[in-house]
């Protein structure tokens, strides 16, 4: 059993279409810890000890958030700045996160095609996620493929619910160690995991 942690960040969930649907699912998966950052720290005053303890207690860590301006809402940056301390997460003595997997669950307005070299944004989503990828590396973690919901502005409720169901399956299988995790960093999107043969 892998222990999965979702650090969720949305400053205005009450207006969100996508994440409110995703939360209906991910909040209630047994064995998956859901940590709502804006709800915990509405004043952005992050309890570093608590967050570090949560990280230590889990094997696979997701940051779930809307992909605002090719990045994350403010509290995610605040969280990274404060929680991933030198001497704990990185540096000569910073080995607390060694061997864990790190990734993002994000919703993007543009289509999958728009996030390509010839697309509207001119870069892949992986290019934009570089700060997260490199952060994971510096903290001795493996960056797994992100779970990306593309083109959410065009999606209807049923589309979103379908994505949510996929996310649920992915999380459950990760939890149950149904995958060989070594190919994870190579995937374009984490939902491709579902097409891989399940481990027995």
């Amino acid at each position: 059993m892998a222990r999965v942690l979702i650090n969720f960040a949305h400053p205005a969930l009450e207006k969100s279409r996508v994440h409110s649907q995703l939360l209906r699912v991910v909040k209630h998966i047994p064995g998956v810890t859901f940590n709502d950052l804006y709800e915990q720290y509405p004043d952005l005053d992050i309890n570093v000890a608590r967050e570090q303890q949560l990280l230590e207690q889990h094997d696979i860590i997701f940051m779930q958030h809307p992909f605002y301006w090719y990045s994350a809402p403010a509290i995610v940056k605040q969280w990274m700045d404060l929680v991933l301390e030198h001497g704990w997460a990185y540096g000569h003595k910073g080995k607390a996160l060694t061997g864990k997997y790190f990734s993002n669950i994000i919703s993007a307005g543009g289509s999958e095609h728009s996030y390509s070299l010839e697309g509207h944004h001119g870069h892949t989503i992986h290019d934009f996620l570089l700060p997260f990828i490199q952060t994971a590396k510096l903290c001795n973690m493996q960056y797994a493929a992100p779970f990306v919901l593309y083109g959410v502005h065009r999606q209807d409720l049923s589309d979103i619910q379908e994505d949510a169901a996929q996310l649920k399956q992915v999380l459950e299988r990760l939890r149950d160690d149904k995958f060989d995790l070594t190919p994870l960093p190579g995937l374009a999107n984490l939902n491709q995991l579902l097409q891989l043969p399940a481990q027995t």
Partner: protein
Amino acid sequence: MDQHSLLFQSMVYLAAAIVFVPLAKKMGLGAVLGYLIAGIIIGPSLLGFIGREGEDIMHFAEFGVVMMLFLIGIELEPALLWRLRSSILGLGGLQVVLSAAAIAGIAFLIGQPLNTSLALGMILSLSSTAIVLQTLNEKGWMGTSAGQSAFSVLLFQDIAVIPMLAIFPLLAGNAAPEATAHATSLRDNLPGWGQTLVVLGAVATIIIAGRYLVRPLMRIIARTRVRELFTATALLMVVAIAVLMNLVGLSSALGAFLGGVVLANSEYRHELESDIEPFKGLLLGLFFIAVGASIDFKLIMEQPWLIMGLVVGIMALKAIVLLMLGKIFKLSTDQNLLFAFALADIGEFAFVLLSFTHQTRLMSEEMTAMMTAVVAISMAMTPLIMLLYEKVIQPHYTRSEVKAEREADEINEKNAVIIAGFGRFGSMTGRFLRANGINATILDLDSDRVDALHNLGIKVYYGDASRYDLLAAAGAADAKMLIIATDHAEQTLEIVKIAQRYFPHLQLLVRAENNEDTFELMDLGVLHIYRETVDTSLRVGVDALRMLGTRAYHSERAARTFFRQDERSLKGLSALRDDKKQYISSMKERIDEMEKLITSDKIKTWVDEGQGWDPETLRDEIRGEKSDEA
């Protein structure tokens, strides 16, 4: 017909009170003077709405004095009474003896018989409990050392009336017929030891009944849940004490005071207080009106110089005695002046004693009438004299001395921050700064608090921050900011004005109690105003929203937006308000204000802030493109 006249009388009295008391207050004369003026105007000398029965009413209204002493007693801890014992016996005793001796001596020298002189001395040595205490209360001077001393003396005088009543028949000698009013007293037919026994018995009855009877009785009454029964019980208690005291020939005021002290520690104390209070107020008012009405202007007009001379002479004599005593008992100069001015008048007991001397033929009818006029005038003068003291004499002395007889502390530290007021508000700010390594020079006017904090190792200086010299001593010239967190709005404004005038470089961070204070501070140009409950109430609001399911971050932002909006509305209101400043304290005005604030809350835009997180326009645009493409 009788009933009609009773109703008519009540109407005249009440209407006079309602017309003249607010007028007097408006003119800064105080309520007591207002009642007296009302009495003079409706009395036989001017309008004649009430006639000769004024004196009967006075006897009835004297019951107000009884109630007042009951209330004073109930507010007085026995421990405090014990602490005052030396000033009651020493100061009070000396005042009565010396004043009586001086007056009697002069009366004897100008040719009065010895016994009449002594009677006069005793009668005129007393001061008016009703007027003096009421005026001291009204001006908030009861807590001053002069107020305490005056109270002690008045208490002794109330006690002194008893032996005086006993001595008068002796002075009158055999020529006097048995006093009719006095004959009803139980004591008269008893030998000396029996009288003492009866008096002691009465006092013991009050103490024992107060201790053991009142509590179970109140509990039974409370169980009936009939509100007016409480009032009835409270009244019954005071009336019963008065009746008992009259029966044994003691002062009912004194008995009521004793009853009050006995009940001071009872759990029904506040209940009793609030029940008796309105009766006391009305009856005292009635009493003052009666005093005003009893001034016989015809008599005064016949011999104006003699009567005025007597009034001034007697009061001056009493004042001199009082000043001497105040000096001996170490009152500071301004307090001593207040003490002397307050007690220089002649009291309401003089009316009783004068009628008594008349009955015992100690004085002629003319003389009694004249002395009655003198007493009434001197009582009416008291509030005027106190007013004179307040307006002319007091301003010459520093304020702190009047408020509490403690000198400001010596200050020997210099900090960038000065905090004025270290109560529940200032202490929080001070502690926070201290926790962050910022030391502040702290000033406070509550001497008990200063001492208590001193014991905790926190340096707080006693002193009035609205005094220039104290601010200067606290290092205001070199400090960067002054945090004003005093409890009283008036004092806050004083400090702001002094600081702005003499230390304009200081940043002022000022606590405001409510919107009105805020407006006043805005008018003074204060930039940093902190309304004391705003943050807490909004925090309650935030928690309430969260508990009802709103997201935490949204709730916090909503509170901050609301706060900004509220400050803006307040500034708007402040500008509007400038035109009609004088009405701002009326209730209606406050409700209007609240209404304007609430209407401005409804502006919808503030709920929708944070558009960047909710790109509805973007979604519409993209969906539009899609349909265009299609």
